[in-house]
């Protein structure tokens, strides 16, 4: 990249919350799992006249918990607003969102890019409702749009960052970390393929001297429809190069919304000539405002589980792990919890358990942490058994455990662990687990 320029990137991220019901009505919140279109709707989320929205308490609390996890301030007073625009996926003609008094403001997230530690400002975290889903089709020779309102009114959190990111790689690292925190909080699957997490980078390019002086570029380009971290990185790189080429000719890139075409690896203009949007936000008259007591905010704080950064530090210290190992173990909360359950018995060194998990020596989806520990124990003992004696014991175990044998033959992998355990007990741990397993598998074929 040209040294005289650098990218100025901010992010807008939308995340669908995995509440049982929708944001403002009791309809089922499961648009992706719905067997048919338009089966989870009611007068509220179809925008029928006279229907009254009532906010979902859990969605509001989760929004605030996310705000707190991103180090935001929680204003004691908040409200919903109407954002007015016409689009067929928005049945009311407005979206209930938050404008000037969102649930969470002024936070940050620390990231590590290479060796550099950086603080990325979080402007706000607010709550709104998702729209219906549009599909484009041809029916009877006519081009039409088909609408499914199963997604209409699903709780949607929007996270907006300050323009603090300075490279596509920083953006990718930031997004991965945000994704990890959302998964730790268990408030959303944040599954980008399903569209429950959606990314919109805002990109502009500045001459280094100008941005050092605190001057932001007089334009920005928003790229929509990005559903993977690597696409976000590619789209940012593409835009940055495009802007530099335009700036080099002495012109300014147009302020516009663009889309990302993954097949062609390019962005394309979506609404360049459109005049500035006028959403005419005003306070939502159907929903009374929200006022928190400080004690409530403290109670939300206490609901935040140990987050990745803290867990990572603790794992390194408590289990004497390398940073590399601890990063992998704490990537997903479930894996971290599995490791801790296995390590708690202290019968096997934490490092050994780590190796087994990281090198995928055992399938942790099939083995319980306790079974894993037993397996490691049995494997680390040296076999001192003549093969013939072992074979005899195995035959005996097979004939005295017909149910486990049948289970195993029916595809139940845990039955193998049971049989293995029986052999281990019979041999008082003298048998080699791998050898035993192989013999068992051969005999049960």
């Amino acid at each position, binding site marked *: 990249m040209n040294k005289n320029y650098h990218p100025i990137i901010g992010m807008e991220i939308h995340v669908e919350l995995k509440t049982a019901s929708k944001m403002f009505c009791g309809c089922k919140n499961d648009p992706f799992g719905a067997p048919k279109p338009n089966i989870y709707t009611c007068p509220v989320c179809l925008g029928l006249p006279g229907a009254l929205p009532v906010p*979902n308490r859990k969605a509001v609390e989760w929004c605030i918990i996310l705000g707190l996890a991103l180090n935001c301030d929680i204003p004691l007073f908040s409200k919903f607003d109407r954002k007015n625009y*016409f689009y067929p996926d928005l049945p009311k003609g407005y979206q209930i969102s938050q404008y000037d008094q969102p649930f969470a403001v002024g936070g940050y997230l620390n990231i590590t890019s290479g060796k550099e530690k950086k603080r990325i400002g979080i402007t706000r975290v607010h709550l709104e409702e998702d729209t219906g889903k549009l599909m484009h089709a041809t029916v009877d020779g006519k081009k039409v749009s088909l609408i499914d309102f199963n997604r209409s009114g699903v709780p949607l959190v929007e996270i907006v960052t300050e323009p603090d990111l300075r490279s596509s790689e920083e953006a990718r690292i930031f997004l991965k970390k945000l994704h990890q925190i959302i998964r730790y909080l268990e408030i959303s699957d944040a599954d980008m393929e399903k569209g429950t997490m959606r990314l919109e980078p805002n990109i502009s390019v500045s001459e280094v001297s100008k941005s050092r002086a605190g001057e932001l570029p007089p334009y920005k380009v928003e790229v929509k429809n990005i559903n993977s971290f690597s696409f976000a990185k590619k789209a940012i790189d593409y835009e940055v190069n495009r802007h530099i080429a335009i700036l080099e000719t002495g012109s300014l890139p147009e302020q516009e919304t663009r889309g990302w075409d993954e097949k062609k690896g390019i962005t394309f203009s979506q609404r360049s000539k459109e005049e500035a949007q006028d959403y005419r936000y005003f306070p939502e008259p159907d929903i009374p405002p*929200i006022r928190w007591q400080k004690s409530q905010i403290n109670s939300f704080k206490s609901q935040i589980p140990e987050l990745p950064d803290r867990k990572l530090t603790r794992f390194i210290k408590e289990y004497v792990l390398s940073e590399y190992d601890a990063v992998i173990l704490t990537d997903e909360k479930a894996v971290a919890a599995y490791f801790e359950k296995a390590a708690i018995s202290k019968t096997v060194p934490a490092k050994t358990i780590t190796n087994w998990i990281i090198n995928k020596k055992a399938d942790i989806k099939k083995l319980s942490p306790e079974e894993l520990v037993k397996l490691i124990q049995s494997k680390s003992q040296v076999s001192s058994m003549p093969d013939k004696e072992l074979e005899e014991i195995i035959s005996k175990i097979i004939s005295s455990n017909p149910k486990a044998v049948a289970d195993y033959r029916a595809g139940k992998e845990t039955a193998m662990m049971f049989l293995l355990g029986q052999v281990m007990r019979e041999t008082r741990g003298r048998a080699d687990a791998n050898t035993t397993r192989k013999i068992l598998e051969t005999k049960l074929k």
Partner: protein
Amino acid sequence: MDKASTKLTTDEIKKLAKLANLKLTEAQIKKMAESVSSVLSYVSQLKSLNTTDTEETSQVTGQENVFRDDVVDAERMLSQAEALSNSKNNHNGYFMVKAIFEEV
């Protein structure tokens, strides 16, 4: 109250009509300029009140923190047929509208 200050131009009416998704004829625009302006003038009588000591608010019910629990209320959910029953056009269980312009 100065009436002239709330007099809307036809351009402003055109913009309002666009935002409201309404198609107006030239005659209607002229008429609207008059009638919307008179509504604004009427409402702007409120400006004559002294509100120095009045706290700003966006609602008057006095209610706060009205929530519902996160529970699916299947009773109030509509069947697909019910949901589509007032639609002008539908197709295979979807609402159907003229194609939305997208450059994809």
